[in-house]
């Protein structure tokens, strides 16, 4: 089985500012990797490199064993900020169907299978009853659920989520993380999150990113890793959670 994601010695800079420095990362099939780190630490950039939306200055990126440009259509992606204009004349149903474009290609119309997939995905995020709403008529959390549905409908081999729970209320968040838990039985998931409690409960492996990536292919990070990433001691991880991000020390 090829690795889902492989990064070797990846560097990215914007002008003179180095955003990612010497990143090495391997994600295996059915991994659930959480990425934490301070704002501006390069988390979204890293996800975009994995997706092939940003070409690194240096280094090798492989997604599902090939160049990201060839394989990113097998990835479900939920961006942090919706990059579109809210007044766009499009319904929830049309947004979700858009996720099926990877399987049907140009010049073809959506068919029964696509409608079925869209329906199932909307059911999973409990948004089916809103399917005819225009996207500006939804709350932030509802909209986020629609984008999650859009990523699920692609039938992904890897799910990439950038702060997916932003604006989603607490009850729905829990259901959402339970849904991810169910999904990871079959696919790999990479999730960027500030929600450290969610990370500690649901993910299998944690990486910490602040220009450099601290990752030991496990759920544990050393205090040195966190110091190096956040440049200050991180205390919020020791609130007696069911699982620990820290090693006992």
């Amino acid at each position: 089985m090829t690795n889902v994601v492989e990064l070797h010695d990846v560097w990215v800079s914007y002008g003179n500012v180095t955003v990612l420095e010497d990143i090495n990362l391997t994600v295996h099939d059915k991994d659930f990797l959480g990425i934490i780190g301070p704002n501006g630490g390069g988390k979204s950039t890293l996800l975009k490199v994995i997706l092939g939306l940003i070409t690194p200055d240096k280094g090798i990126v492989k997604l599902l064993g090939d160049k990201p440009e060839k394989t990113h259509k097998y990835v479900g992606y939920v961006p942090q900020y919706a990059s579109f204009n809210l007044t766009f004349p499009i319904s929830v149903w049309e947004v979700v169907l858009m996720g099926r474009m990877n399987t049907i290609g140009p010049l073809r119309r959506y068919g029964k299978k696509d409608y079925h997939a869209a329906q199932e995905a909307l059911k999973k995020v409990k948004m089916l009853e809103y399917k005819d709403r225009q996207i500006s008529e939804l709350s932030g959390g509802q909209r986020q659920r629609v984008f999650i549905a859009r990523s699920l409908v692609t039938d992904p081999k890897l799910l990439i989520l950038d702060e997916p729970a932003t604006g989603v209320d607490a009850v729905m968040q829990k259901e959402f993380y339970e849904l991810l838990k169910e999904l990871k039985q079959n696919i790999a998931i990479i999730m960027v999150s500030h929600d450290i409690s969610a990370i500690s409960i649901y993910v299998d492996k944690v990486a910490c990113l602040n220009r450099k990536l601290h990752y030991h292919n496990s759920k544990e990070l050393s205090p040195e890793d966190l110091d190096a990433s956040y440049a200050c001691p991180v205390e919020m991880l020791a609130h007696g959670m069911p699982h620990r991000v820290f090693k006992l020390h």
Partner: protein
Amino acid sequence: MLEILQYSFMKNAILTAILASIACGIIGVYVVVKKISSLSGGITHASFGGIGLGYFLGTNPLYGLIPFSLLSALIMGLVSRRSKVSEDTATSILWSLGMALGIIFIYLTPGYAPDLMTYLFGNILTVSTSDLHLMLGLDVLILIIVYAFYKEFMAISFDEEFATVIGVAVERIYLLLLCLIALTIVLLIKVVGIILIIALLTMPASLSAHYTYNLRNMMYLSIFFGTFFSIMGLILSYALDIPSGATIILVMSGVYIIHLIYDNIKKKVHA
């Protein structure tokens, strides 16, 4: 009033209004929802170089216009996407560059340029039957392409980043859309002229956005608005004996502004 229909130029003018509104309604919706009206304005004005080239070569200026507007669409699209120059700046530069070329071409053409004003400000009454055939052909082409790439155009207009990830050839589809804008310019030029085209391209679409949240319905509605306002403007210009292109734009803008004010008042009353 009906007696004006007896003139063949009037029949042609009305057919022109309909054919132009079809292209304009469909493509104008993309211009509005993708927010590329200034880029479209740039393509329009740069196309003036093609009119000049047509005069210079002694052919129908429309034959100079078609390749020239397609070329400026492609250059505009590629420069704005690939170079470090901002889209805004690139648009302004190419906008003037095309017009400058047109002026030089016309200067170099011996004699004077007949109907130059028609291309700048439009004159729907000068549309010949062969022009109509060309317009019909372009309409059919635009309809076929939009039908074939409907979901791709929607995807790149709505969310380019996601469209890229999902495997849509975003840049190529975007360039195709810009080429359709270029062809629409050819269709509209005799109606309102280069200077006023951008108003015709944006107003019916923007007005229709107030009435529907569905892209397809928006297209139908803006075709209707376009046809209605063009014919209204045409009749008014005939009755008052004033230039048709400008009258069409004035009628459209008048309704648009009244609509905006009415909308605002309605919101305040409900608030």
